[in-house]
């Protein structure tokens, strides 16, 4: 009575607490604590990519023009007024571009290296000057002369073409092909427009993400019908992932609950059997509350696996229930089943305990959650449950005299064994074809609509592949520019200038600019300036050039701009800097872009080692880092799990032969998982590896129970108990096959295959092996 009261109170408290539990679908929880992985993740989280949302507007019909699109952009941008949005970039002031560019040319002496001065030397000759003046004259005949003349006057020797070219390249470094029309960000064909929003909402903030997405979706509603608007942002993934996982959890819980209820009602035909179902349900409820108190928040992935955990944790209740119904709740009965039940639980617990040794925080939650739920279930099953169940009809517990129930369909044991060996060879063969998928994006399952919108967005804006990023960091901005320049110089040598888009290409470090300025001053002696002026005058006369034609350039020759940390008041410079230079609380980071391809990653990885503090962030590299870190970890964790499982099995059975027979389901399940995954056209991933480890813990229980049963023949309902236990587990795992989220689906497939094969193997192959591998002490079966 006291226990019931206490249990009820605990359950009620847990139920109330459930409202306050915070969930987290942050992918970081599922990543290893590897330095490189965490560094990349921190960069992505803190970089200014993560605080932006893009609204892509598309003209739906050919009746409407770019003008209508621009009007819609203005209408939408004007309607956004929320503290969640810090800044709206709908239009760009293009009016200052030209004067700014010309103003920037005053830094030419600091930006041109020795190679440019060598070329310049060749240009200041009669032939060189004549050629340039002829070119400028020809330009004056073209219809675009008004637009190029100011540049030609400020840079008659075309010294800055490389710098201007670099500025243009940098503006497209992120990979998107944006044109400016009436100051708006439009696609090349004028059918798409882009509005960029800067937000204070972090990507990892599920609640904030939902708020801002909902707010924007409301603002999109009044747009005219000929405009299709999509929100392209990481926040969209946060919200959609959360929605899908919530939906999956809800769906799988409903299906699993009905499955459990129907199974207990039809298989047990005893309303008290419902207690077996309520024990894991209550255990999951209590564990959720306690896990939240310990961890502060719970991963959705762990909660998503709760049905599986419930399916595992009810096994002990089933074993006890079947034994008590068959043989009563006497101490003798309990002694007969306590050992295999406890050892079975220990093997499962040992697999989950292994996850505590992982560096992935999410796995710590999984380990705690699973083990706590299993321990509660085990304790209730062994000590409380027997008091609520009555024996069907009193029997004497002795070893069964009749042969054990056979599932061999009358087929001789040797044929079954041959069949098993062939199956193992096929599965082992298929498993060699299995590929490991280390793509981190598989953890992200925002749904088809978001994926379709993003594909359309990338196709409209010319972005085929997102570039990778090389990050350098330093304490001061000056040091950061210096380091960035050093990296740029070497990176260009390693991968070529066209493949490395760096801010250093338009703004090198102080020391290089200082050296350049010194060389410039040394080059432009008074004599050289006079020689240049004379050449201009002489060869400009036939073209009728005025004496002041190139005054904007000549006047700066003996009065170059002074050295500064960076130019001031240039909008274009600030906009570019905003893309490349990030101010952190205690440091500056400067990024450079390069193609996200293995050969570039390999070449630049060497450079990263040379400059401490610098690192690469690329989708491919990140996946590789995660994969390497997890592979290292899982090799060790997997071995530990195998050892612990073998140890507990051997301790219980105290016999090498029986231990080997008991692990046959484990071996069969592992090979089958690999084979079936390959046949299903899927690849192995980390969640599937975790699920495989869980399978080991589960099917080892079946193996232990069946070997125990083969050896002792106790009338404690072992076969129906194992059958029901595996069915309930399969219900818990198979429901995940209905999940939309790719990770939950992958886990579901692995667990269902593993448990099903492990069960069939326990029922069929263990008795076969037991019979074929005879021992003198064995009771004939």
């Amino acid at each position, binding site marked *: 009575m006291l226990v019931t009261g206490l249990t009820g109170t605990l359950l009620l408290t847990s139920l109330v607490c459930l409202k306050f539990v915070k969930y987290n679908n942050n992918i970081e929880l599922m990543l290893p604590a590897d330095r490189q992985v965490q560094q990349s993740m921190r960069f992505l989280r803190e970089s200014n990519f993560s605080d932006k949302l893009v609204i892509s507007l598309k003209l739906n019909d050919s009746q409407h023009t770019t*003008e209508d699109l621009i009007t819609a952009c203005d209408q939408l941008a004007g309607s956004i007024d929320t503290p969640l949005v810090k800044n709206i970039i709908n239009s760009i002031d293009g*009016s200052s571009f030209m004067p700014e560019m010309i103003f920037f040319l005053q830094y030419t002496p600091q930006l041109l290296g020795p190679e440019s001065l060598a070329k310049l030397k060749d240009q200041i000759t009669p032939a060189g000057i004549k050629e340039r003046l002829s070119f400028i004259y*020809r330009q*004056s*005949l073209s219809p675009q002369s008004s637009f190029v*003349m100011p*540049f030609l006057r400020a840079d008659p020797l075309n010294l800055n073409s490389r710098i201007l070219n670099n500025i243009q390249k940098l503006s497209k470094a992120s990979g998107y092909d944006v044109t400016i029309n009436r*100051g708006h960000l439009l696609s090349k064909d004028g059918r798409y427009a882009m509005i960029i929003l800067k937000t204070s909402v972090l990507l990892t903030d599920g609640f904030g993400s939902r708020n801002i997405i909902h707010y924007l979706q409301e603002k999109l509603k009044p747009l005219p019908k000929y405009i299709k608007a999509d929100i392209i942002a990481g926040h969209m993934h946060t919200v959609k992932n959360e929605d899908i996982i919530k939906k999956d959890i809800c769906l799988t819980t409903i299906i699993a609950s009905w499955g459990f209820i129907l199974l207990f009602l039809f298989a047990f035909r005893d309303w008290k059997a419902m207690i077996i179902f309520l024990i894991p349900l209550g255990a999951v409820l209590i564990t959720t509350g306690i896990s939240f108190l310990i961890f502060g928040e719970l991963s959705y992935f762990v909660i998503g696996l709760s049905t599986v955990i419930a399916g595992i944790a009810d096994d002990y209740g089933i074993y006890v229930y079947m034994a008590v119904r068959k043989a009563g709740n006497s101490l003798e009965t309990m002694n007969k089943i306590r050992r295999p039940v406890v050892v079975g639980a220990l093997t499962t617990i040992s697999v989950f305990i292994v996850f505590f040794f992982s560096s992935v925080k999410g796995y710590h939650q999984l380990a705690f959650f699973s083990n706590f739920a299993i321990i509660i279930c085990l304790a209730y099953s062994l000590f409380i449950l027997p008091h609520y169940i009555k024996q069907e009809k009193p029997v004497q517990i002795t070893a069964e005299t009749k042969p054990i129930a056979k599932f061999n369909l009358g087929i001789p044991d040797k044929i079954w064994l041959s069949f098993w060996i062939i199956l193992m060879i096929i599965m082992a063969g298929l498993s060699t074809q299995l590929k490991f998928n280390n793509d981190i994006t598989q953890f992200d399952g925002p749904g088809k609509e978001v994926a379709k919108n993003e594909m359309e967005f990338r196709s409209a804006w010319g972005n085929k592949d997102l570039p990778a990023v090389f990050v350098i960091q330093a304490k001061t901005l000056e040091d950061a520019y210096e380091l960035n320049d050093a990296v740029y110089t070497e990176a260009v040598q390693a991968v070529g200038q066209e493949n490395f888009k760096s801010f250093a290409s338009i703004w090198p470090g102080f020391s290089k600019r200082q050296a350049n300025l010194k060389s410039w001053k040394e080059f432009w002696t008074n004599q050289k300036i006079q020689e240049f002026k004379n050449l201009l005058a002489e060869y400009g006369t036939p073209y009728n*050039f*005025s004496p002041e034609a190139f005054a904007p350039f000549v006047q700066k020759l003996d009065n170059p701009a002074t050295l500064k940390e960076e130019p001031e008041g240039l909008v274009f410079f600030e906009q570019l800097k905003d893309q490349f230079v990030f101010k952190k609380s205690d440091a500056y980071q400067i990024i450079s872009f390069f193609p996200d391809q293995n050969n570039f990653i390999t070449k630049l990885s060497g450079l990263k080692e040379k400059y401490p503090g610098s690192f690469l962030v690329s989708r491919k590299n990140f996946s590789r880092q995660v994969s390497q870190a997890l592979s290292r970890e899982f090799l060790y964790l997997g071995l530990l799990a195998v050892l612990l499982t073998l140890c507990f099995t051997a301790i219980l059975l105290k016999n090498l032969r029986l231990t080997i027979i008991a692990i046959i389901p484990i071996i069969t399940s592992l090979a089958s998982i690999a084979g079936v995954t390959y046949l299903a056209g899927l690849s192995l991933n980390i969640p599937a590896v975790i699920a495989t480890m869980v399978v080991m813990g589960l099917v080892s229980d079946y193996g232990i129970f069946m070997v125990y049963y083969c050896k002792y023949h106790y009338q404690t309902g072992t076969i129906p108990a194992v059958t029901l236990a595996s069915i309930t587990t399969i219900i818990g795992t198979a429901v995940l096959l209905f999940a939309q989220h790719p990770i939950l689906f992958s886990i579901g497939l692995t667990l269902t295959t593993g448990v099903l094969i492990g069960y069939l193997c326990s029922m069929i192959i263990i008795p076969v092996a037991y019979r074929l591998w005879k021992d003198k002490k064995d009771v004939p079966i």
Partner: protein
Amino acid sequence: MKKAVLFFILCASLSFTNLYATEPDKELDTILTTLEEKMSTVESMQTDFVQEKNLALFKQKLTLKGKIFIQKPGMLSWRVFTPMRYSLVITAKSINQWDEDTNQTQSVSLSANPAFQVAIQQMQNWFSGNYRPMQGDYYIRIISRQPLELEFIPKEKSVAGNFIQKVNVLFQSKQQYIKKIDILEKTGDTTLLEFINTQLNQEISPKVWKVKSILE
């Protein structure tokens, strides 16, 4: 009574003010619509031109003479005969320029030449007759109604504002094509472009679209 009179005066003045503010807009809109309609009947145009440039670059005025060919949609051939042969041809596939001094044909990439891109866009805007969308970039004012002359002043944030102070466009009496364009640049340079012997919807020789071909 006084209050009623005051109210009446206030209403009248407000409505008059409103009328005063919107009437020119309405008129401009009507004019731009009419221009659009009339110029939309023009599928092709060929004309001689004289361009006078007062540039700080030169001691004296630079005068260019040549021919322009326009074929909708989007084809333009700009031919200078004096003081030096120069041609620029824009077709759907390419932009090429040639000059007799170097006798070299140069292909132009718009993406690599933003200034060129702006120039081409502006040129196509002027000749297309589709001026209403240009109100996004320019303030448009009516200078005279017969013959029609419009003044275009770039708006503060427009790209054209980088280069241009204002543009005056004088139309032919039937308003089917432009007679004169007067450009005042930000630098103080001026360009006057006058069209002579304009022919509309006449067949244009295919060799016009070959940048190197010599036309007389």
